[in-house]
């Protein structure tokens, strides 16, 4: 059973462990527990970048025990939209926390000078990080690997310069290729002078009934590996969506001015797999291996001398830094991905901010005076690379405003109608229809993975769904994912973990819950998250929906604003908010 919460105070340079069995008993683990801890730890109205704002990490009761139970949740107050900050990452962190025996970690306060935290079982050290401050996130990994213990079972998470300089959508890089990408956890690290966190442990997990555990494990493993439940993720990977959405008029292109891209084939999952993919890797204890790594080989002299870079690519990155910026070459795309990886920037937000800036530049709303002579043009990779660096360095007002996100940028320079954010979070790569728009607006973290509205739209394109049916589907996902994110499973494996299988898996490790119990818990978790959101000023009634969504054809045709309004009304009714 989970129970231990590790509290680390950066002000006092102290740490202690507390038994919080009550919390895990009621809220299961993962996001349920991390949301409750956030409500406990974060005073109302706190500046997200002040020492009073906490960082919380959590894992769940199935972590390290079952295939694809690979995620760690982070909760914090978002410096991007000022309300619920929640982000998930894979890699090896969840396993490392489990074996270190810390099922949740709370980081309080701020260090006076750059530091990193090293956790090895019960030993917690706060160490000096002065010499690695300013170092790219990728390089920090090489450095800490050599000085820290736990090779093969540890996790090293770190920020790049973007987090240090408080770019509001800076992420945290986890074990090189995974990220806490969304909503600005990197800036919160930076505000605490916290460069990195290393976790390793040697505990193991005993189960009450090994035989029952092995039986359910075998079933789940078989479903994951031998059926088509997860096929798309281990073949082409998430980039399979590039061609699919392009054909469905759902691939946002040039800041959502189009929903199909003439060069989509060049940056498609198939093309990348055939020409650039050289390896797939996995998060710890996931047999799928969805992390696709492409090799970018660039010649740097006439004598057959090459630079080789290994770049992890996924659908959302291809959308944000590819089609959304009109980038038509895999090389250009991969260079942009690498720039975000090194700086430690969220790729989705960066792509959306640059998309807005390019359109504003195109329309003459901003000029080279603002961009410091950098032309921002569709497919202009060199300009984008320079702009990314300047967003981090913030040499003038324009770039420092870009570093605050697309809401802030359009507040200052105009162009609200094409500033593609919902709930203050730059939108993911879908223009599929009303369920996506509504789903992102109402979702707890305004992420496409809150409730997968894009998938509901795609179903509606095949067989028309009424607004009511779409809203019901969104609510069902909202709540069910609160439970799944408490276990914590990778959402790519959600087809493997049906409610019945979740109940069996929990039972095999000694946690008896019924399907109904979990449904109730899902609703409760959703409500707790909204409690935090509303407390910090989120008002669904004031939610802004960019007009651009209604000007570009989507997967289900032109979207009628009235449909979205109707759905919003039904949603509020169904939630009992009116």
């Amino acid at each position: 059973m989970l129970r231990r919460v590790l509290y680390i105070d950066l002000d006092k340079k102290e740490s202690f462990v507390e038994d919080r069995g009550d919390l895990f008993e009621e809220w299961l683990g993962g996001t349920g527990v991390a949301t409750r801890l956030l409500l406990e730890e974060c005073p109302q109205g706190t500046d997200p970048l002040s020492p009073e704002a906490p960082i919380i990490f959590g894992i769940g009761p199935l972590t390290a025990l079952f295939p694809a139970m690979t995620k760690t949740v982070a909760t914090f107050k978002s410096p991007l939209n000022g309300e619920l900050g929640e982000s998930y990452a894979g890699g090896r962190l969840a396993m490392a926390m489990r074996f270190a025996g810390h099922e949740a970690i709370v980081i309080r306060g701020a260090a006076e000078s750059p530091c990193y935290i090293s956790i090895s079982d019960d030993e917690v050290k706060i160490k000096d990080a002065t010499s690695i401050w300013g170092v790219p996130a990728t390089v920090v990994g090489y450095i800490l690997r050599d000085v820290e213990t736990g090779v093969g079972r540890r996790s090293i998470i770190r920020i790049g310069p973007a987090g240090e300089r408080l770019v509001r959508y800076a992420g945290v890089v986890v074990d090189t290729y995974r990220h806490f990408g969304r909503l600005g956890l990197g800036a919160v690290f930076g505000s605490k002078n916290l460069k990195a966190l290393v976790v390793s442990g040697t505990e193991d997990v005993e189960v009450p009934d090994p035989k029952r555990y092995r039986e359910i494990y075998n079933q789940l493993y078989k479903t994951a590996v031998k059926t088509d439940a997860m096929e798309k993720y281990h073949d082409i990977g998430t980039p399979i969506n590039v061609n699919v959405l392009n054909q469905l008029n759902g691939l946002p292109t040039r800041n959502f001015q189009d929903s199909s891209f003439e060069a989509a084939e060049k940056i498609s999952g198939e093309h990348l797999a055939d020409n650039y993919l050289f390896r797939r890797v996995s998060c710890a204890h996931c047999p799928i291996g969805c992390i696709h790594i492409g090799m970018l080989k660039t010649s740097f002299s006439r004598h057959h001398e090459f630079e080789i870079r290994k770049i992890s690519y996924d659908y959302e990155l291809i959308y944000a830094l590819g089609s959304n910026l009109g980038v038509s070459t895999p090389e250009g795309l991969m260079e942009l991905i690498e720039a975000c990886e090194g700086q430690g920037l969220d790729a989705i937000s960066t792509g959306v901010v640059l998309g807005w800036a390019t359109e504003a530049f195109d329309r003459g709303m901003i000029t080279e005076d603002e961009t410091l002579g950098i032309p921002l043009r569709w497919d202009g990779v060199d300009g984008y690379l320079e702009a990314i660096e300047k967003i981090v360095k913030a040499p003038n007002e324009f770039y420092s405003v870009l570093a605050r996100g697309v809401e802030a940028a359009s507040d200052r320079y105009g162009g609200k109608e094409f500033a593609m954010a919902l709930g203050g979070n730059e939108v993911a790569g879908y223009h599929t229809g009303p369920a996506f728009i509504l789903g992102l607006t109402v979702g707890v973290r305004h992420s496409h993975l809150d409730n997968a509205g894009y998938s509901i739209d795609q179903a509606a394109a095949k067989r028309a769904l009424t607004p009511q049916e779409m809203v019901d589907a969104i609510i069902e996902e909202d709540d069910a994912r609160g439970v799944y994110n408490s276990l914590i499973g990778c959402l790519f494996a959600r087809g493997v973990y049906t409610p019945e299988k979740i109940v069996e898996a929990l039972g095999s490790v000694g946690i008896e819950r019924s399907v109904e119990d979990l449904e109730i818990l899902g609703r409760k978790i959703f409500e707790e998250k909204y409690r935090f959101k509303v407390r910090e000023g989120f008002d669904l009634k004031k939610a802004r929906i960019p007009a651009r969504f209604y000007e570009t054809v989507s997967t289900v045709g032109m979207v009628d604003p009235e449909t979205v309004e109707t759905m919003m009304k039904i949603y509020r009714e169904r939630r009992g908010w009116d």
Partner: protein
Amino acid sequence: MIEAEAGTGGESKEASPERAKRKRRRLKVAHPERCIGCLSCMFACSRINAGRASLDRSAIRVKTQGGLEGDFAVVICRACKDPPCVAACPRGALDKREDGRVVFKRDLCDGCGACADACLIRAISMDAEGKAIKCKHCGACVAFCPHGVLEMEEVEE
């Protein structure tokens, strides 16, 4: 999967004449370059042989070399013909049978670590109770490798 589980736990039985005739089987890393680093093999070993979820109790190890950007290395017992671990054990806890199999007698192990030191490959480690973790070539890990990295092979003596 079922065969793999059935193959475990039989180490205390004396080899029947029929069994002795059968060729000894051992684990082999057939395609190391196909490894995706998922660690399913390590979890299978500890789950099936130790009844828990653990990396430290696994007899097979997947090492990272330079983080996830680097290559993975799979460390396994080679089932040596003349095993240095057996020679090094002062208490007879590692017992080489007629058919060539090495059987680990946990109750005889006093945790001195001589076997682990004797193995150049570093295929033996010590568990939290200080006892050796020795691969018994049961094939549990093979059944749970999603990428065909591991195979069982017959040993030509």
